[in-house]
């Protein structure tokens, strides 16, 4: 469209309020759990949390209890509900501090003026984080808006005992991976566990193949809508992925990641590209048997220099009533000791602070931290590196259609490119 008429917002808003007011109300009501603290001199800080699962909820409660400068009140909302209503939540009556994700997904909201610039906080806590973490907390205007708390890497997971039994070795290149997968097929093991019923797990495979073949910079600019999806480089990624499809667990679109992880735990499948949270599906006794390697090299120019490692953390909403208290709380979250509470309670996450004590880590956590420290570039995962509307309404259906018909690459990419043009305009 070359001409757009600005129309009165107020009139549309009035009508729209009736239609879209309901979810906003929903977002506001969750379970209020006051955490009684001694109460410092900074009044009350409210926290909007998406940590509705048992372990993350307990973690946040414990960490916040250690904060003595102000009284705190946590409003916990169901994880998905929180995410889906974030727009209306931030425009309505948000809490002072809220849980969110790093990278483009943070920048998207910071750019709309919905978050408070916390560069002054970063002057104090900056030394505790690596440059990669700082970059992921920085908005497009060069200011910081986010404090990283925990993260988890994506890798290829496998069971050590199964691999030892069969004498499999960690592949270093794509050819070795293919050869290994062939051998597994000969041993009646499905080489690569795969599930995409929920739409997002396949994004992890796309991310890693794209970063291995075309490098981090291309990946990020593709995600930001600056590259064409019909570029031969993107086509190559899907071509390579198609070549690996015969080794993937069939019927992936009817399976959840939990079920695929179960198949890995039961040794029906040989390996699985997923986040470290895969450990949740392993019984306590088998967790020591779980190990991983980073996705093998494809293009020697990039080696294995990039991985997906989504970072979770905290931001201050633009409508916060107690900005001073909120900043103090963010500094508390940035402390290594706070983050260690989380890594102790949740075996699937790592502390974002480089000062965090890693001696209490499980073997898996130690390997995870090592993997991330070796990576030159850290991506946030497809749905966090690009516009939320593009990820959910274009990429999910498109990747699912690729999984069901891997041969239709050209028409699929043309369709993604057309839809991208409609969204990134």
């Amino acid at each position: 469209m070359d001409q757009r008429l600005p129309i009165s917002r107020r009139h549309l808003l009035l009508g729209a309020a009736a239609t879209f007011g309901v979810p906003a109300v929903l977002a506001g009501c969750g379970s209020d759990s006051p955490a009684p603290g001694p109460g410092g001199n900074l009044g009350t800080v409210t926290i909007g949390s998406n940590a509705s699962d048992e372990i993350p909820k307990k973690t946040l409660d414990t960490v916040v209890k250690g904060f003595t400068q102000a009284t705190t009140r946590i409003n916990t909302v169901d994880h998905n509900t929180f995410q889906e209503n974030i727009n209306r939540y931030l425009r309505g009556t948000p809490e002072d501090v809220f849980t969110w994700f790093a990278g483009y997904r943070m920048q998207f909201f910071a750019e709309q003026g919905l978050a408070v610039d916390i560069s002054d906080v970063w002057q104090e806590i900056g030394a505790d984080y690596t440059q990669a973490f700082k970059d992921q907390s920085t908005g497009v205007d060069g200011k910081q808006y986010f404090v990283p708390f925990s993260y988890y890497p994506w890798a290829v997971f496998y069971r050590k005992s199964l691999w030892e039994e069969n004498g499999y070795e960690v592949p270093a290149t794509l050819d070795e991976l293919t050869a290994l997968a062939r051998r597994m097929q000969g041993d009646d093991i499905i080489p690569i566990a795969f599930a995409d019923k929920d739409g997002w797990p396949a994004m992890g495979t796309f991310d890693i193949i794209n970063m291995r073949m075309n490098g981090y910079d291309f990946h990020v600019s593709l995600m930001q809508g600056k590259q064409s999806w019909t570029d031969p480089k993107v086509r190559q990624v899907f071509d390579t992925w198609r070549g690996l499809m015969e080794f993937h667990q069939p019927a992936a679109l009817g399976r959840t990641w939990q079920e695929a992880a179960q198949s890995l735990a039961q040794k029906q499948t040989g390996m699985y590209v997923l986040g470290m949270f895969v450990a949740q599906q392993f019984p306590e006794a088998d967790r020591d048997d779980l190990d991983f390697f980073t996705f093998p090299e494809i293009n020697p120019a990039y080696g294995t220099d990039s991985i997906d490692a989504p970072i979770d953390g905290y931001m201050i909403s633009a409508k916060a009533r107690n900005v001073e208290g909120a900043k103090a709380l963010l500094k508390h979250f940035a402390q290594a000791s706070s983050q260690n509470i989380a890594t102790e309670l949740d075996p699937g996450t790592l502390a974002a602070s480089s000062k965090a004590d890693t001696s209490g880590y499980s073997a898996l956590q130690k390997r995870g931290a090592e993997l991330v420290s070796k990576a030159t570039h850290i991506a946030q995962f497809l749905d966090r590196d690009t516009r939320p509307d593009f990820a959910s309404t274009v990429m999910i259906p498109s990747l699912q259609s690729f999984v069901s018909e891997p041969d239709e690459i050209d028409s699929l990419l043309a369709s993604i490119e057309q839809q991208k043009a409609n969204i990134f305009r």
Partner: protein
Amino acid sequence: MAAKTRRYSARDMAVLVIGLGVAIVVNVGVIWGPALASIGLSGTDWSGIGPIEWVGGQNYHDLAAEYPPFWSAVRNNVLWLGFLALVATPFGLFCAVLLDRRLRLSRFYQSALYMPVVLSLAVVGFIAQLVYSSDYGVLNSVTGLSVDWLGDSSVNIWVVMVAAAWRHVGYVMVIYLAGLKAVDPALKEAAAIDGASERQAFFRVVFPTLRPVNVIVLVITVIEALRAFDIVYAINRGRNGLELLSVLVTENIVGEASRIGFGSAIAVILLAISVGFIATYLSQMFREER
């Protein structure tokens, strides 16, 4: 006796204003307002944040030409309507006719068929997963097949429609059963005396007297087909072969995506389809009354 022009007292006026006024306000505020707002928003590219910009028919062009899920959703909605109207509803009528003949255990069959109706479609969705899942589903383990019933986009809509029909059949059956009980037995007797076969008696005599029931069943079937949402949302959030217009509206507007303009355009199309059916139905009703 001079005819007095009737005058409303202040009290009458107050009652009138309150009685009619409230209804109008509610109607406009809850039904017409949002509907018109959706139509207005469908011509914009509003994201829920920031300025609203007018893009005219752009959204309609985008969704018809460049949004693959849209046409599969239209196709699925039509399939859904066709399946309920041509398979589930006649089957419900068939069950009702059989049960009306006072078979042995007919109460038992009646309860068994009606049971699914008390379940919400979301629950039916969860049950469907237990039956159809390719790894742990009952269907595959009993038959020894290894079909990915819910993941394969060429079969999943059919098996989901079967699950939805499972519930619809019971619903339709009960309504027809009530209708059949109300048919005067003398009509059937008269038909039998005139030498009509069972089949003729049903199609020529009984079925036409069920006309009011047929209209109700038809309306229910259309409503069920257009509002179908929960069952596919429970199964895979309405993706990969299970797209429905109602799901696409939700996906675009309610999610983090917030493509409010684009989602409204889909909602307007759903509205247009619904209005088509409603207008046909109402005009039929009014014609009858005249």
